[in-house]
């Protein structure tokens, strides 16, 4: 994020164009990375436009969902990705018991195995910050006209 041009995102910015230096805020840096990944992926799907990008965020990932949505909306505003929706799946913290192998969701920081009460459990998920999917739609005759005016 650092060291990029600090000009605002150009309306109708093309895929691959540099995004603004809005990486100062943590969630803004994340939103910018998500949008860059979408633009890169779109190069592989000519004749389509992106409708929704899905993220998986672990509850231990230190990401504020509302702040992320706010930042995401701010950087797609008045670009050709303005209609791109953001889907967020929150992943709970899961542990596996080293004794009995049971996998379970940790609630209220209680990482004791619910089956055998062992404290020897290891974290297997919960700090995700991942791009899960992208939904794309083919341009129809009406959408082509609509896009070209932007």
């Amino acid at each position, binding site marked *: 994020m650092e060291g990029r041009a600090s000009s605002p995102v150009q309306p109708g910015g093309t895929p691959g164009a540099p995004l603004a230096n809005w990486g100062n805020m943590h969630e803004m840096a994340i939103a910018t990375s998500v949008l860059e990944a979408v633009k890169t992926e779109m190069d592989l799907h000519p004749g389509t436009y992106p409708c929704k990008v899905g993220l998986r965020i672990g509850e231990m990932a*230190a990401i504020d969902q509302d702040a992320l949505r706010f930042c995401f909306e701010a950087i797609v505003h008045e670009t050709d990705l303005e209609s791109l929706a953001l889907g967020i799946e929150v992943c709970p913290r899961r542990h596996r018991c080293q004794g009995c192998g049971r996998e379970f969701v940790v609630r209220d920081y209680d990482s004791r195995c619910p089956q055998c009460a062992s404290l020897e459990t290891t974290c297997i998920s919960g700090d995700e910050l*991942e791009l899960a999917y992208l939904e794309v739609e083919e341009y129809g005759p009406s959408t082509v006209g609509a896009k070209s005016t932007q």
Partner: protein
Amino acid sequence: MDRVPLEQKVLSENDRVAAELRARFQEHGILCLNLISSPGSGKTSLLERTLEALPRHDRVAVLTGDIQTENDANRLKRFHFPVKQITTGGTCHLDARMIVRHLADWKLEDLDLLLIENVGNLVCPSSYDLGEAAKVVVLSVTEGEDKPLKYPSIFFKSDLLVLSKIDLLPYVPFDIEAAAVNARKVHPGMEIVKVSCLTGNGLQEWMTWLEERRKARKPLAQETTQETMS
């Protein structure tokens, strides 16, 4: 409508650069630590006392991050080890590229230990891998003992908790045992040392932890060299 699986990390570019750094550190047998805390918890003081305790010829360097000013680097340069300030100009965390850039004119073969002081912030730095062998979180007794529960991510991801400013314990309502219990709720088995940079209390424990980590790193590099030679 088509759904295309992406299956990649959001910060994959930072992770890629961090993995390259980690490989370089490993190749040169360097222990790299990433120190994280709220502003004012005592990261720089801990580094001052650490550098003061190390022998003059030791192969140690420090990168210290802040949003503005060279103040921390100036404080740490007194100890005659290589020190560089990273001023982020507003960014609330260090990222792997900043580390690469600031290491550019240091010879890694001259180093055994690289201490990175992150920007004072308990949230954002936890998402950015800097190629470190371990994160160390510093929590001072003038903060709340429930900090590990309020900011679990960084306590979860750090190998060591340094409870700092313990000389102030008689004057502040801080339950040090509760702090340890909370940290271990978030991170079962977390290692904890309690220090005062003012009185020197507990610093030996921190230095022992540091030296043990350095020793654990060394044979790895030697083994690699032997394998290459044989």
